[in-house]
Each structure stands twice: as C-alpha cells, then as structure tokens.
C-alpha cells in the first residue's frame, strides 16, 4: 500500500489528478530543493563543524557533542507496537503470546497513517476496547507464567504467604524492572506487593494475589507505553539513561532492553554520546539489528503493507500467498546480506544479484542459484538484463502498484517521495477529479498519460512524476516482466532533470549516483528512530548524518550509529508539552 498522496493518486487512477499550473514552478532547475534538504545532499556546508564524525566535541559544538545550532524537538511517549509487545513478552518471560498462549491476544491496532509505525506509536491513543485487550493479554500471560513456574527463575521456590515475603518483593522488582525497563521505586514495590494481601472471598489468598501482582505489572501503562520524562541539562532536556536504553533497544532490536543495556543505564553510561555509541555498536552486531533493517526498509518502501488480498486475482492469475511470501523473503535476504556484509547502500539500487528460490528465479526468468549456498531455500542469483537492484524486485514493484495494473503515476510518486524524499504536491482543494469519459479507444498507459498532460494544469506536475514511473513499465502490477501492454509495445523512455532514461537500468544508475537518494535513507532513518515526522529544525542533523553516511561509504551500520548518537535522538525540548491535536492554538 502507499501513503496519502499515493493513495489519492491510486484512487484517482491515471487520468484524474490535475493540479494547478504553478506546480513546481518555483523549483524548476533547483532540484536540490526537493524535500527541503539541500544542505544534506553534499554535506559541504554543515559538516564543517566536525560534530558528525569523531564523537568528541568539535569546534562549534557544545558539551556531549551537541551542536551549537541544535534545535530540539518535543519528546513523545510511544505505545509499544503489536510486534514490540510480543517481542518484549517473549524476552521477559520466554513466552510467545501468539504461539504459546493458545488464544489470540489482539491488541489495539498500530497506527499506520504515517510512514513508520514508530511515528504512529508516538501519538496514538488507546480506545476502551484496546485497554480491555491489554488487560486480557496480561491475564493470559500471567496465567501461563504461573502454570509453568519452573520456566521462571524468579518464581522457582517462591510461594507467597504475605506482602512482606522477600521472594515476592524480589520477584516484583525483577519482573517489574524488565517489563518497565527501569528500577521500581519503593512505593511501587509496596503497592504491587500489597496485592498479595488484597481481599479475596472474605479473606486473602496470598499466592493468588501474587499472580495478580505479576499480571498488573504487565497491564500497567508503565509497560504498554514508553513514558518520556527526561532530565534537564542546561537549557536542554536529555533522555534519561533508562529512557535511552529503551530508545536504543526498540529502535535497533524492536524489543525490550537486555540486561547489558539496563546495566549500562544504571551505570550512567547512556547519557553520553560515547556510552550510547558503545551500546549501539554492540547491538548492531546482533542479528536482531538486521531484522530491524529489513523492517525499516519494509516500512519506508511500503513493502510491509502489501497483502495477498490487495491484488485482483483476475488481473494477476499467478498471484498468490506463496509468491508474496517469496517476494518478502527475497527482500529480507537481500537487506540482511547487505547489512551483514557492510555493503555500500548505493548497491541497493544497482546490485546485479538478488536472492531467489528456484521457483522465484523461474518466475523472474533467471537462472536458479547454487543450492549449496541456500538460506531458507533461497540462493544468490545473478540478475540479468531485466532487473537492477532492489527497486525492480517483485516486492517493491507489487507494493507500489494498484490492485489490477501497474501505474506509472503511483510508481513515480513512490520514487520521488520515498526514494528521493521529494514531495509530490497535493491535489488543490478545488480540483475537479471526476473521471473523464473513456472514449472506448484502446490505448497504452503511456498514451493515456500523454493525453492527460495535454491539459496544462495537469502537465506541470505529471511531467515530473510520470517519467520516474514510466521507466518501470516493463514490470506489470506484480512486478513481472512484459514486452507489451495490451498489445502496445512498452516504451520506458523518458527524461528526468536532464537525465535520459532508456530502461530501468538508467533509473537504477540515477538513484545510485544521486546523493539525494542516500540522504533520503538517512532522513528516513532519523524519522524512524525518533518516531517523528521531521521538520526544518532537523536540517542540521540530516546534514550531519548524510556526511557520516557518505564518509563511511554508505554503510547502514555506521548510519544507525550516527542516528542513535545524534543529539536529535538523545535530547528533547525542555517542555515536552506540545499542542494537542484538535486543540485550538
């Protein structure tokens, strides 16, 4: 699926989006302004203060590597995503809520209206039914935990008799610290231990009360959310060590902090740039970091939103769950291999190999790879003349197409917005987008778009969008190669910003060469990590990240270190209060 504008475009079809003639008129010939981040493209201007590289204070930087011109953004409490909830329970109790509990634990839906779930998690609220689901999950998890007491070290040999039992209090501290990712204060321990002595059927049942205490730790908003309080440092507000432990862990592992992170926080190491870097580097060696990278690109490039039912089976008879699964596996293996090999991110666009099962290779028309090198049945496969890098994989092409066809407009907007971080303009409020009558003449998609551009009010924008999608027209709506469309020979040629495209290979080369594509990845990474839609205040941070990314020969690992050590990730505005949505300013 695609985001707002793209949905509008998809909804409107090929012929419907007309915008005013002024589209981009102020930006013509100034491509670097797209996305408002020209400073980041070459890094020459803002990299001079040296804050990006060394981790030490550079000239022009304040303490702890915070640039003098740093403008913080508000911090925001995140709600665990469904995946983070599941991962956290797995790590704390060794239980998989889906697989082990035997009953589904449905949680309030993740907010997906923004590009990254981390952004939605930063502002979503929980409905009454969602609150009930968290409660039911807590009951189910605690019930399972106590049904198998040998599985929990803190529970072995601990039979509660009163709220004062040392083992009960120890258990609350142990479980609470893991669940809430911070130490409990004395009042909290008292309040939870008191459940052991809580009224029950006219008396008390300490062991049963103990179970409810553990369930309550899981139900608590201290677990369900990542509260952000921070601590004042000069005129800035810094995430506390324990808040930073969670921030690092959910960003780099998508799960709760491990003991080493919590210990590092307790030792006061996570309030310095160096301490954060040490932990980030340790964490990036773990395979969970590769999983997160797959998720990151999956969200950034829409791949994680595609579902089997989103394609019309009549339009694509070959489309099924198995094909979609193989697309997803390919996408994940390419990125995992890329990350683990510290490869140059530019190769994401122009790589000459992919990973494929024999069936998928055949679907692509490629020679199957060496079975001896297979992972999950997928082997490295040489791409031929028709495919170039991740952009031409089935996953990316299918995810960025309507249900029953390819759409150069949808793909053009995808390339412009998601790969170059440019901005396709919204349809103005007065647009008349009623579908024009089809005159019944068979036409190629290209012909339809050309007719569309005869309308000057449509042309100015579509001239910018369409070539980026038309160049991919050899791939149909699920990414399969075709020589013609409805009997019309495919003509993928076009021109974008003076670069002539003859084939998808040219677009791949264009993206690999264009610093904006790399800066765009850096920008997405900062947005993903901070859980924010970025603003103008982030321009210096983006520039800094772009410089580091460039200097590292575009290694994703180095980018993620730079993101997590950046002041924008570690500091917030002194007053976390922000305007509440819908409140009158």
């Amino acid at each position: 699926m695609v985001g707002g504008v793209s949905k509008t475009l998809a909804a409107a079809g090929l012929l419907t989006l007309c915008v005013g003639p002024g589209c981009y008129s102020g930006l013509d010939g100034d491509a670097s302004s797209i996305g408002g981040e020209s400073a980041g493209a070459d890094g020459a201007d803002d990299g001079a203060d040296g804050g990006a590289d060394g981790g030490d204070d550079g000239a022009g930087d304040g303490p702890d590597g915070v640039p003098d011109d740093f403008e913080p953004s508000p911090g925001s409490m995140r709600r665990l995503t469904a995946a983070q909830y599941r991962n956290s329970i797995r790590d704390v109790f060794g239980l998989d809520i889906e697989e082990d509990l035997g009953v589904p634990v449905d949680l309030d839906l993740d907010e997906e209206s923004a590009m990254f779930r981390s952004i939605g998690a930063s502002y979503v609220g929980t409905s009454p039914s969602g609150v009930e689901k968290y409660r039911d999950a807590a009951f189910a998890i605690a019930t399972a935990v106590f049904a198998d007491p040998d599985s929990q070290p803190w529970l072995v040999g601990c039979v509660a008799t009163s709220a004062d039992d040392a083992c009960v209090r120890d258990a609350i501290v142990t479980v609470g610290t893991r669940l809430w990712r911070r130490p409990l204060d004395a009042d909290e321990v008292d309040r939870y231990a008191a459940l052991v002595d809580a009224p029950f059927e006219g008396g008390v049942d300490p062991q049963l009360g103990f179970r409810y205490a553990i369930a309550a730790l899981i139900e608590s908003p201290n677990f369900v959310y990542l509260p952000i309080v921070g601590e004042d440092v000069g005129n800035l507000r810094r995430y506390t060590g324990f808040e930073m432990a969670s921030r690092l862990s959910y960003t780099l592992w998508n799960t709760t902090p491990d003991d080493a992170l919590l210990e590092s926080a307790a030792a006061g190491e996570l309030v310095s740039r160096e301490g954060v870097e040490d932990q980030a580097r340790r964490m990036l060696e773990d395979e969970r970091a590769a999983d997160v990278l797959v998720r990151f690109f999956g969200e950034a490039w829409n791949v994680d939103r595609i579902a089997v039912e989103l394609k019309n089976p009549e339009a694509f008879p070959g489309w099924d769950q198995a094909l979609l699964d193989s697309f997803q596996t390919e996408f994940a293996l390419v990125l995992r291999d890329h990350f683990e090999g510290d490869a140059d991110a530019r190769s994401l666009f122009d790589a000459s190999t992919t990973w494929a099962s024999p069936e998928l290779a055949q679907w692509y028309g490629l020679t199957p790879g060496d079975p001896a090198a297979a992972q999950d049945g997928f082997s490295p496969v040489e791409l031929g003349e028709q495919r170039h890098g991740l952009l031409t994989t089935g996953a990316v092409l299918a995810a960025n197409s309507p249900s029953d066809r390819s759409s150069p407009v949808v793909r053009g907007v995808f390339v412009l917005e998601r790969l170059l971080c440019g901005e396709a303009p919204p349809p103005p409020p007065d647009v008349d987008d009623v579908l024009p009558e089809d005159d019944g003449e068979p036409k190629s998609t290209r012909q339809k778009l050309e007719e569309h551009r005869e309308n000057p009010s449509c042309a100015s924008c579509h001239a910018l969008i369409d070539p980026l999608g038309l160049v991919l027209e050899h791939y149909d709506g699920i990414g399969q190669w075709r020589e013609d469309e409805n009997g019309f020979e495919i003509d993928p040629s076009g021109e974008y910003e003076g670069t002539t495209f003859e084939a998808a290979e040219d677009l791949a080369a264009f993206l690999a060469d264009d610093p904006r594509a790399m800066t765009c990845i850096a920008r997405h990474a900062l947005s993903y990590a901070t859980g924010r839609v970025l603003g103008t205040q982030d321009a210096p941070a983006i520039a800094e990240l772009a410089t580091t990314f460039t200097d590292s020969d575009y290694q994703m690992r180095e980018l993620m270190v730079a993101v997590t050590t950046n002041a924008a990730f570690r500091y917030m505005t002194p007053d976390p209060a922000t305007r509440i949505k819908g409140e009158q300013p």
Partner: protein
Amino acid sequence: MNHRAKPRHSVQRQSLSRRTFLRGAYGTGAVCLGLPLLDIMLGDHGDALAQGEALPKRFGIWYWGGGIVHSAWVPTTTGYGWEVPYCLQPFTDMQDYVTLVTGTNHRNSSPGHIPARGIALSNSHDPDTSIEGVGTWRGQKHPEPSADVLVADHVSGQTPFSSVEVGICRTGPYKSNSSWHAGGTTFNNHEEVPTELYDRLFSDLGQIPDPDYSVLGTSRDLSKSMLDVVMEDAKKLQGKVGARDKARLEQHLEGLREIELRLEDFTTSCEVPGVPMPANYQDNSSEEQKQQKSELMSDLLAVAMACDLSRVFSYEWSATQSTTHYWEVGVFQEHHEYNHQNPQGQGMMDITQFIMANFAYLADALRQMPEGAGNVLDNTLIVGTSEHAVSGAHNYTDHPLIMVGRAGGAINAGLHYRHPDPGNNFDCPKAMLTAIRAVGVPLESYGQVGGPGGVADRVVTDSISELEA
C-alpha cells in the same frame, strides 16, 4: 472449539484464557439470544422505567465504504409512502422505520477517501501540517470526534460499555478507522470476530469463578484490586509527562474506568446468551462469509442494546476505501477499483443493495427485541452513511444518509426528506445533528469551527426541522 483459521500450537495451554474459560463455562451451542429482561424494570405502562425515567435511547452509526448509486437510491417522491428504490429494497417491510435524507451535501475540501470519512462522520477534517504527529499535508486527521463518540461521551457511565464497535469486511487500507475520539488520534477498534465480540460483552458480567481461580481474571475481588494498582500507575505517570501524553493517558484511564464500572456497579438481569458459533462458520477474514458474520454480529449487538449493556454502537460494515470483493452479486473485482471503473452501473447497484440487506438485518434484529409496548428499534436511531456519495467520482454531492429507527418518537420515521435546493447546500451535517439530538443529546453544534486551508466553517447549529417529530 477453534474458531480461528490459523492453527494454534500448544493445545495444552488453550484453556488458560479468562475469556475462553468463561465462554466454556457458558457452554456452546447455536445462536441463543438472551432475553431482554428490561421489562421487569419497567413501570406499568411500558413506556418508562419504574423509576420514572424514560426508556433509554440508543444511537448507532452504520458505515460502509464506497457510496451509492443515486438512480437506484433516491425515491422519486418525497414525504411518506415513497416507492422503495432498488438499493433500499431490503428495507421494504420496515419503511415506516426509515427516514431518508437526500439532496444534501457536505462541504468539500479534498476529494480523497480519508477526508471524506472525517467529513461524513464528524463534519471535520484537518489537513494542517503543523500539528505534531500528523506532519506533512498527507496527514489527514479529524479533530472532532465521530458522531457515535459524541453520543457515547454524553451517555458514558450509565452503561457497562460506552460503546460497542463491530467490523465486518476487513479488507482495504483503513479498517477500524470509522470511530474516533476528540483529537483524532484514538480510533476505536472494531471487533471483527463474533466470538470475541461475545467475550467482550459478557466476560466481565458473568464472573463464574474458576474452581481454583488459576485462570486469572476470574476473581472479581482481585481483579478490582489489580485495576486500582494499574490506575494509580496511570495517574502517577500523568503527573510526570507532557500535556499531550497526559491526555493520552487520560484516554487510557477512561478505558480502565469503564472496566471498573463493570466490576463494581453493574449487575444485569439479562440472560447471557450461548456462544453464537455455527459449526460451518470459519471465515473471520470476511470475504467468504461476510453476510453470515454480519448476522452473528447483529444478533449479538441486538442483545447488547436490548440488555442496556451499551447505548451506542459503531457498525463498520466495510472500511473507507473498501477493497471487499462482492462475489455474492457477481462482482469479482475489489470494490474500490470496481467503483472507479463502473461507478453507476448495475454492479454497483447490486453491491449497494447487498450492503443495505445487511443493514436491514441488524435493524430487524432490534425490531425483534420487545421493549415496553414496542421494541428496541422504536427507541433506537441508526444513521447509515458512507464516505462519499458517488465514491468512484470522489464526491459528496447528494450524500447518502439513511436513518433507521424511531428514536423514541423523536424523528419522523418513514419520511423521505429531499432538500429543496439539492446540490446547492451544505446541510448534510445538519441531518447528523438532528439525529444526535433525536436521541436526547442536547448538542449545540456539530463539526469543526474554523475550517483550515481557507475552507469555510464546517460547524452547523441547526437541525433539519422537517425531520423532527
């Protein structure tokens, strides 16, 4: 009974859910509706409670994605006794419960499905780019609560559930997006599995204890103490975080308070029904058995309304920009794309009629529930609407708005009201305001004050008096 399509592992642990346990305690079986025993609480005349209060009024939103076909929707005559158009034929035998509003429009600002949803259900839509969390212009949020939540906020605390949300067709990018709270960042979750709706409604009410209480959540005493601890956590957190997060925690606390209400104050004289799960029902993905699922959900919802478990519901037949396949009427292309290509054809008429048949089933289920001298539908008003009028053209002109029920006599049921100047008004929100007032909510205005982006104020303050009895 495993009602999930996905196989589960670890059968050994299957009995560990409170809900599953409680459901097991009630036994299984075919649909067996509870008796609406409100009658025992009624006064002699059957039109008011024994305490002298009026019978409760219920309000529901019945929402579908994809709009209508005007030629098969708008009756040729106004007033009463209109000839029932093709799309509305499922309501033929309850025309005297239907109030049809046609010829009214919404104030447009942006043609897409998401703004349309906000405008149709809350008379608000905010493309403001400066709001934290919403970000770029593509963030399309609705600052005012949806109409069902407006009503629920007014009656909350009087029933165990402030509202009940049900979703049938789950395909498309925006499921569970048709009911939201003020601010537009908390969306109610539409329950999409009949047994889970059953569990939601009844698992806190029955409280049949597990013999040794090893299934947590079956002790009312301890559940209450646990809730106190968790609520205290939420309140303490509120004192530490910023204003926006404080409001989010308040939203969370509202959910906890509803649970508290159910645990402490609520007793029902209603009989808990059996689990409504026919053996041949498998499909929770809603493509194959959407009608059967809708009937199960409607039966449960009718019990919930009759038993006064809630007075408000949101029924999301299909989501905004729905991609449901209506194979039942011979359309095999998904709804949204099909709609764009054939917005006014016979296929769309058949789809719309099929959707209305499912709406009519719910209305009839409420009508079958006796209450006082009449039935529950007499004391209910359901507003049916969609995000667009002609969704294939993304427009709001002559917007569909169909009210079903009599709102305790406050609405002129049976009327076809057509605006005297169709196409040249922005009165559709006035119809929604009329419906909200008809169920006894004294709302002064409805919708957004100060429309963004140069759009005129959306807010309306007048009812459509012709609709009011």
